[in-house]
């Protein structure tokens, strides 16, 4: 079994990186290039870079920016935001992305997952699912940066995506996003149990203990986080040291 992965998430909006709460109230948190360089020096396990306004603005991915960032990124890089066609994927991989995350297009055109997997392999297709808890305790998936309900539960969406050839699920709790109150462990467990591909838990990390909880009880393969790195003194390296102490297999 591979090491569990601790990965910072970089959200890009307009001109730089942002971080919000529940997919709203965005705060600026610096330049993407600076962040990539720092995380590269610190040898983080993997980076996730999402352009959060591309789909809503009707834009394709910004290939030039990704090209510049990837040139400084000697670690695995997942790129998402505005990815709607096989050609988008080809160009992103060409300029240095290792994996491509698709969210809105995966819901609207599930066949796109199959096309990408057939052409480039399952391992580079990350299906990104943003989910919100309903008042009855079930979950709804959303597209368009949390604006449009997809009409399907995250577990069903993940299972369908796996059947179409997705290689990984990036699962974000909209409710927990930016709150630093902990991951939605129940949501993560529902999806992890529904699929056999790796699930990256995202949304809500505030402490290293939150990570251990979602890895153990949510059966996640990786933990993504943003706010706790932007707004506290905590680091991916210290997270892994903590997780090793808690009995997890990590790369140090």
């Amino acid at each position, binding site marked *: 079994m*591979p090491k569990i*992965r601790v990965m910072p998430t970089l959200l890009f909006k307009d001109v730089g990186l942002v971080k919000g709460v529940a997919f709203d109230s965005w705060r600026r948190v610096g330049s993407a290039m600076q962040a990539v360089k720092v995380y590269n020096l610190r040898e983080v396990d993997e980076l996730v870079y999402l352009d959060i306004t591309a789909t809503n603005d009707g834009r394709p991915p910004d290939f030039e920016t990704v090209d510049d960032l*990837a040139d400084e990124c*000697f670690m695995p890089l997942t790129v998402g935001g505005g990815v709607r066609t096989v050609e988008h994927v080809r160009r992103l*991989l060409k300029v240095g992305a*290792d994996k491509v995350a698709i969210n809105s297009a995966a819901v609207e055109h599930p066949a796109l997952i199959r096309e990408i997997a057939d052409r*480039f392999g399952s391992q580079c297709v990350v299906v990104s699912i943003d989910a919100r808890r309903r008042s009855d305790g079930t979950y709804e998936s959303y597209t368009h940066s949390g604006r449009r309900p997809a009409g399907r539960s995250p577990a069903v969406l993940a299972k369908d995506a796996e059947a179409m050839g997705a*290689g990984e699920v990036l699962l974000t709790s909209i409710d927990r996003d930016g709150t630093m109150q902990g991951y939605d462990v129940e949501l993560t467990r529902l999806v992890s149990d529904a699929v056999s591909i790796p699930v990256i838990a995202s949304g809500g990390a505030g402490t290293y203990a939150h990570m251990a909880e979602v890895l153990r009880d949510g059966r996640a393969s990786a933990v993504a986080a943003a706010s706790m790195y932007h707004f506290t003194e905590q680091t991916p390296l210290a997270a892994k040291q903590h997780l090793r102490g808690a009995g997890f297999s990590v790369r140090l």
Partner: protein
Amino acid sequence: MKRVAVVDYGMGNLDSVARAIEECGGRPIVTDRAEDIESATHIVLPGVGAFGDGIRNVRQRGLDQILREQAVVGGIPFLGICLGMQMLATRGHEGGVTEGLGWIDGEVRRLEPAGEDSRVPHIGWNEVALTRPSTLFTGVDSGHDFYFVHSYHLVCHDKEDVLAVTPHCGGFVSAIARGRIFGVQFHPEKSQRLGFQVLRNFLAL
């Protein structure tokens, strides 16, 4: 200066590989032209994608002949990465059976989950246990972590070709060598310090 042909067959993370080679002191040329490959001191065959598509693209461009002449016949140091290593096999079983380049006696098969936590694709950092010493791993101790992202693996028929194994899905071959032909299932270009050490070792050949 080492002139490194990074073979472009229309698939794969060519820029990442080229950038890493540059950082390691080589001069990469991303190319599918015979004259570039023939004048290179080293050849790297990268790859992300499906076996059948990869082989078809390589053949359509006539690269199978050129690569064979340079690496197998000519002895130019050659490194296949991920799909670039798998394509050296006799045949692949990804989306039907496809004949490979046939430089390494073996088959490319899907990873089969063994036990609860061997998820496929195998994505992430995992140990590379060396089964014999090799200049490719000079300065890299056995058991260090490298970055993997794949669903298929190379099953070697000749154990002499195996350089390293990795414990996932019952264990699979993560590096091979036959003479100056090398292959790694992991991504040295994304494995930071130790990945660069492997690339520097290759460029030093």
